[in-house]
């Protein structure tokens, strides 16, 4: 047994291991005296540890193995007495039959992609109309409220700040985010309660293992779809510190719910628009799935790179239970997904959108030598934006949206639109006309914005969570900067290639 386990220091020396009863009684006498002495003075932990080491050498056999196996034997004995298995039942059979398909080496991955595509298709197809309705409703209200303020004689800056600043920010965030979330979260929760997530981890295990990462990273990655901060916290299930860090640092590469609206909007107005209406939403869903798959690819790639460089090591083995499929409870699904998840994320977005709306209004309305601060900063960022296929306004939106990714699109639109054009934006085709017609967006802008949204730095909440979980400023900084650098690199490459080939 000593050959299998690294021997304790004493095991190698036969003289010490072969102790006699008298040796032990002498030793114990000494220990009792020592205890008496330490009780009189300050007790000394080091002497206790040393004493434990001495005692360990005196123990015969491998008591640890014995302790563990006696527990196992006891558990087996008891369960043999009290558990009776009846006939093989149909339910178990069903579970196994389903698992044979869901986790099959051939069908497992394609089935996952189909499920993912269906979830996004339902989200996109279902969210379109309510989003537009919410937007027009809110902006109708903004118009009336502002008019009311004007007739009441309120100063222009007060009306502008409150209604065209703070309120408009809120309105955009709610109408862009609420419908997709209210569809996506219940679907996600159903999959979770059914027991599908461990199957995903099972299917992806071989990829993560090759990347030198832990198979449970697939679970934490799945949590990241909801919220990257939650995904980072979920990495606690990974016991190896190295693999846990890999999972923390790469969680950002799956788009969270705050970033989905950006992807969905771009997929809708650029991808879907080039297809006939019947298949438009399917095409849009396909584009979003493509981005998500790319994100999983980057997760694996960066995990692999980290495992070969700063976090060197091999993947460790682990066991993962595949729980039985369980019928999700409707009430709980609705509560969890709508009250806890949707409203919570929305509330967070609202908290950041209101000040962001105010900031944008101020940037647009404070003028320095003929140009607004917004124009100044957008112009300053324009060269950098152009180099990576975007523009200054988009980068400005990303700077303002550091606290929460949710407000990127609303911020961008508010800077683009300036004054009172807002009420005309009632459909996605208006949006397309604005972006392409007035602000020179091309397919490259759309593709690179999708890439940038996928890869760029995590939001402030996630960065703080990384710090809390690792208690290291260095890892938190790496967790923020690695994606940012990668985002710039990738978008710079695509922009350069596209321009060299004359596509734009």
């Amino acid at each position, binding site marked *: 047994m000593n050959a299998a386990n690294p021997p304790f220091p004493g095991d190698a020396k036969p003289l010490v291991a072969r102790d006699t009863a008298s040796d032990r009684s002498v030793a114990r006498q000494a220990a009792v005296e020592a205890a008496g002495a330490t009780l009189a003075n300050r007790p000394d932990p080091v002497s206790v540890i040393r004493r434990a080491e001495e005692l360990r050498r005196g123990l*015969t056999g491998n008591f640890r193995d014995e302790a563990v196996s006696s527990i196992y034997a006891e558990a087996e004995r008891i369960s043999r007495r009290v558990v009776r298995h009846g006939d093989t039942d149909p339910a178990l059979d069903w579970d196994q039959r389903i698992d044979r398909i869901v986790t099959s080496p051939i069908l497992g991955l394609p089935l996952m992609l189909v499920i993912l595509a269906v979830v996004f298709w339902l989200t996109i197809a279902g969210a379109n109309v309510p989003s537009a309705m919410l937007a027009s409703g809110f902006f109708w209200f903004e118009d009336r409220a502002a008019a009311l303020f004007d007739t009441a004689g309120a100063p222009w800056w007060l009306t502008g700040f409150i209604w065209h600043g703070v309120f408009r920010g809120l309105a955009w965030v709610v109408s862009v985010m609420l419908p997709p979330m209210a569809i996506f979260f219940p679907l996600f929760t159903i999959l979770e309660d059914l027991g599908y997530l461990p199957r995903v981890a099972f299917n992806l295990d071989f990829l993560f293992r090759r990347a030198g990462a832990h198979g449970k990273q697939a679970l934490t990655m799945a949590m990241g779809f909801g919220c990257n901060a939650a995904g980072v916290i979920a990495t606690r299930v990974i016991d190896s510190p190295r693999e846990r860090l890999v999972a923390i640092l790469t969680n950002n590469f799956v788009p969270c719910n705050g970033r989905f609206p950006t992807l969905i909007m771009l997929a809708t107005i650029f991808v879907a628009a080039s297809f006939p209406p019947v298949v438009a939403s399917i095409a849009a869903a396909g584009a979003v799935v493509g981005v998500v798959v790319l994100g999983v690819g980057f997760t694996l790639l960066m995990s692999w790179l980290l495992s070969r460089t700063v976090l060197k090591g091999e993947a460790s083995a682990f066991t993962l239970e595949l729980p039985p499929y369980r019928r999700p409870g409707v009430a709980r699904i609705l509560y969890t997904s709508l009250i806890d998840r949707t409203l919570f994320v929305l509330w967070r977005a609202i908290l950041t959108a209101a000040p962001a709306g105010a900031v944008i209004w101020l940037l647009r309305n404070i003028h320095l030598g003929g140009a607004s601060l917004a124009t100044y900063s957008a112009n300053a960022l324009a060269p950098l934006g152009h180099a990576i296929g975007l523009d200054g306004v988009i980068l400005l939106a990303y700077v303002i949206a550091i606290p929460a990714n949710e407000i990127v699109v609303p911020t961008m639109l508010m800077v683009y639109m300036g004054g009172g054009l807002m009420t005309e934006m009632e459909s996605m085709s208006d949006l397309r006309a604005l972006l392409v017609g007035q602000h020179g967006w091309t397919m490259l802008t759309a593709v690179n914005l999708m890439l940038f949204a996928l890869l760029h730095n995590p939001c402030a909440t996630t960065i703080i969570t990384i710090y809390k979980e690792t208690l290291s400023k260095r890892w938190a900084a790496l967790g923020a900067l690695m994606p940012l650098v990668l985002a710039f690199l990738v978008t710079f490459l695509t922009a350069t290639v596209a321009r060299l080939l004359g596509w734009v």
Partner: protein
Amino acid sequence: MTAHNCEACPAHAQLSQMGLRMDRFDRVVALAGNPNTGKSTLFNALTGLKQHTGNWPGKTVTRAEGGFQFGGLRYKLVDLPGTYSLLSASHDEEVARDFLLFGRPDCTIVVADATALERNLNLVLQVLEITDQAVLAVNLMDEAKRKGVEVDVRSLSRDLGIPAVPVIARTGEGLHGLLASVQGVIAGEIETHPRRPTGTKEFDAAIAELVPLIDAVAPGVPNARWIAIRLLDGDGRVERALETGELAALVARQQRPDDRFSRKIALQGAQ
């Protein structure tokens, strides 16, 4: 010492869910068990809270705390992450272990999956090594029935030396009996004689010698016996904890409510 099935008793004790109101509580009860056995579901059923549950092992990664009232006493219930063993190393399992060892719960409810009892019993026996104050909740009885698995809960209770109560946390079935057992164990009305596999004579002697030493070095630390076993095993982390006095801090930390953080996470979108 046998399990009471109180479904038929006169309802002298009523369960009332107290949610997050636990500023004043009389007793602390911990929920332990293997991953994905329904601890959070039981937690929600008892406290009326909406801790996120999910059908996958590893859902709960921090402690969540809630309150309920039963038989005139206020209880604080602590939902712990699932763990297969008290020796494990991942961060979520450490949270569970530290609370069971150093959090001084008045009673520990170990939740076991009736469909996989043998594997679950390994943890039950480990928990019984460190505490007398425990009740076994045999959960998922409905699933077991569907799968044709029958559990003789009465014999189980006798073999383990603690009350064992069949429950279905999803529907709330058996909760009354469970709480009556918890109450009985805490009040000392139900005597427990936990089953403990004994070691060799040398091993027991070594433990007997180390326990008073540990009590002297770290006064007031619960489970000196467990620490003695870990020291004998050469567990470097326990050695360090003892040396640096971190053990005392660990004990103190268990007394602090953890609900602020865990609640925030429970609400953090997708946790």
